[in-house]
């Protein structure tokens, strides 16, 4: 069942429109006809008056000289006026002096003429002689010519009105069609996402509510998959929104290919999508989730970039994880959060504990917002040593947060939150300032070769303030740039290579050194490394952990070191904990290391 917004076009209005147009035309027609009738009648009356005055001059003389025959002869002239039915001259005392009656049987006027005053017309005027009325002349005329003209006029006007009505109807029909199209467009816009053409949040909510109600009645089940793109923020921030939009379109198109016709795909906003699978239980939901993850794992060619996004999916089951759209979506959201925490590109079902976790996370976020101003953040330093001599060559500055409510919170927990909430910019500036100030102090104490490594989050690259911030901090703390090393992760290099490389070059020009952190687990390619102004690779602890016993890891570490050598990069092994590891690393040519073997991260003192 596809989402279907309901549209009511109100056909009743059409009929009303038609009626009102017809009524308006009818009234106009009636007015025209009655006005024309009045005009014609007046004309007729004038003609009658003229005819009467023609005979009256002669007749007056006949009257005063009592020559009735002469008057009769005068009236007989009316036989040349076929409309005149009769004429009479009546003396003031009421006696009939002379009269005329049209010869031949005059046809009666049609039945409708009488009530409309169109049967006959009577005209009367006095016969004056020296301003004295000597008699009255009265004429009765048949209105037949008038009727004929009016009938003709009515035919023309009705024809015109009918034509006008037809034209108006045609125009109105066109207008209505245009309005209907507009309405449809508006309904579509209100219910569908303009970018991807998928149902939007509003339609998702109404449609899902409908589907869930139906499913509940039938005792069925459903699964709501809630997912977002793992690296969408990075793409959006680094390549800009237009590219982000293109990526969303590509993703939506890809999703459209892989989901079943019966599944309801919606875009709630940003990079958040939902998929409602009716009738799905756990196993089917997993199958669909895997399918989606597979489909989105491939790189998307967008605007000349190959963008790997990947998706994490939270799954909530109906009715157990929520019996309303709202609750189901919240459960799926919690599951999504868990999936992301579990390492992305994966799915998680909602569980009751997730509610608690979600609440915890809210508390964490709230606490984190005030951590800096309340002075709950501090920096600790882990030594980086020369594996040959055991001498300290520098320190990696690491951030610690001790919350009064939550106690010590792991950076693995709070740094991603700081990144998501944007607090990372303030935190990063704080870390840089603290580390630089501390190093200045060490320099002042006589440890002239110490270098401090500060982690830069991928997020800090976006916003263009990083270079200024570093330059400013070096100035304020009076630290020579050669004593500062900035560690960036591979993630930061993704996507907007051009922009990031520009920033790295500017940082390099400042005189600070640059390291690639956690090398080996990400996507950095050799060709990329060659183009970057990087001086140092830090081998991820996961490769160091099992050497020298794990042959694969040993081979990888050996290869990384060989490659770094060839590119003229120095290498730092992270997570060195045993003598064996130190020995192996030294043997394969790794000159520096960092780990519990040499010292835990500790406050500067």
């Amino acid at each position: 069942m596809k989402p279907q917004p309901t549209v009511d076009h109100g056909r009743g209005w059409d009929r009303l429109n038609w009626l009102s147009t017809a009524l308006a035309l009818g009234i106009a027609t009636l007015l025209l006809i009655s006005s024309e009738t009045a005009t014609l009648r007046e004309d007729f009356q004038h003609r009658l008056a003229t005819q009467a005055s023609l005979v009256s001059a002669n007749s007056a003389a006949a009257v005063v000289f009592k020559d009735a025959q002469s008057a009769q002869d005068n009236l007989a002239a009316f036989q040349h006026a076929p409309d005149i039915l009769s004429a009479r001259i009546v003396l003031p005392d009421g006696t009939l002096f002379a009269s005329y009656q049209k010869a031949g049987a005059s046809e009666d006027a049609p039945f409708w003429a009488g009530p409309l005053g169109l049967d006959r017309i009577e005209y009367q005027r006095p016969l004056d002689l020296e301003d004295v009325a000597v008699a009255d002349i009265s004429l009765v005329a048949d209105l037949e010519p008038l009727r004929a003209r009016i009938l003709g006029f009515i035919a023309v006007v009705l024809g015109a009105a009918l034509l006008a009505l037809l034209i108006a109807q045609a125009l109105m029909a066109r207008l209505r069609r245009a309005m209907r199209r507009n309405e449809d467009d508006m309904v579509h816009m209100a219910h569908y996402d303009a970018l991807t053409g998928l149902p939007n949040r509003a339609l998702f909510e109404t449609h899902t509510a409908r589907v869930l109600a139906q499913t509940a009645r039938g005792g069925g089940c459903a699964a709501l998959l809630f997912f977002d793109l793992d690296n969408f923020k990075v793409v959006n921030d680094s390549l800009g929104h237009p590219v982000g939009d293109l990526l969303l379109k590509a993703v939506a198109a890809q999703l459209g290919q892989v989901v079943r016709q019966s599944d309801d795909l919606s875009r709630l906003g940003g990079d958040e999508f939902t998929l409602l699978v009716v009738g799905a239980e756990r196993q089917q939901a997993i199958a669909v989730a895997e399918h989606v993850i597979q489909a989105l794992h491939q790189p998307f060619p967008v605007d000349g970039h190959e963008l790997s996004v990947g998706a994490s999916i939270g799954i909530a089951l109906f009715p157990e994880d929520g019996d309303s759209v709202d609750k189901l979506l919240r459960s799926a959201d919690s599951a999504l959060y868990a999936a992301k925490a579990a390492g992305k590109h994966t799915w998680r079902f909602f569980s009751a504990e997730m509610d608690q976790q979600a609440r915890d996370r809210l508390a964490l976020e709230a606490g984190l917002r005030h951590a800096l101003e309340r002075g709950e953040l501090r920096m600790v330093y882990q030594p980086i040593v020369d594996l040959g001599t055991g001498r300290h060559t520098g320190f990696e500055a690491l951030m610690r947060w001790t919350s009064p409510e939550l106690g010590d919170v792991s950076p693995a927990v709070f740094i991603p939150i700081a990144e998501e909430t944007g607090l990372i910019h303030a935190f990063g500036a704080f870390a840089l300032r603290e580390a630089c100030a501390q190093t200045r102090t060490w320099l002042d104490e006589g440890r002239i070769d110490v270098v401090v490594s500060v982690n830069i989050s991928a997020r800090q690259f976006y916003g263009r303030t990083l270079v200024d911030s570093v330059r400013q901090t070096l100035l304020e703390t009076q630290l020579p740039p050669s004593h500062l090393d900035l560690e960036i992760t591979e993630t930061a290099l993704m996507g907007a290579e051009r922009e990031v490389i520009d920033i790295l070059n500017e940082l390099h020009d400042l005189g600070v050194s640059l390291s690639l952190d956690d090398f080996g687990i990400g996507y950095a390619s050799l060709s990329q490394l060659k183009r970057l102004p990087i001086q140092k690779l830090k081998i991820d602890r996961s490769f160091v952990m099992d050497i020298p016993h794990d042959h694969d890891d040993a081979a990888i570490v050996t290869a990384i070191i060989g490659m770094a050598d060839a590119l003229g990069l120095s290498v730092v092994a992270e997570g060195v904990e045993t003598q064996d590891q130190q020995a192996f690393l030294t043997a394969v040519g790794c000159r520096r290391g960092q780990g519990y073997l040499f010292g835990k991260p500790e406050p500067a003192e």
Partner: protein
Amino acid sequence: MRGILLAILLLALAPPTRAALEEYEVKAAVIYHLSLFAEWPPGSPREGSFNLCALTENESMAEALSRLGGKTVKGVSLMAWRKRPTSDLSICQMVYLGDMNDAARGRVIAQLAGQPVLTIGNGGGAQIPGIMVSLGIAGERVYFDIDLPAVQRGGLRLDAKLLRLARSVVK
């Protein structure tokens, strides 16, 4: 004696018989109406009134004509005068000649010769020579005969409607 005197007085003062009275009235009306269908040359009538002069011994006729006074002719008020045949008739626009001997009539016609004065005579059935319009009576109807050359000699014009209604017209 007193009775006889009273009877004589009553007889003298008795109005004319009703039929006779009607005849004069009708004739007077015709005379009045004739004036409405005649045209005088410019400049006449003068002095703001239309003068009808009656030359008649018949009191009833004179009386009927005098009652026309006050009517309007061509927009001016009609005044009825009673004149003697020997009087100066130059102020009259219309002269009614009652029954009189030919000599007296001849003198009047001679006096008015060439004057714009409409002469109306009581013809009693025949066209009176030298008189423009001669009245006659048949039953209740008054008819008239017109001597058109006489009219034209006086510089007058009569309406064609009038000519049509005339019993006869001398051309």
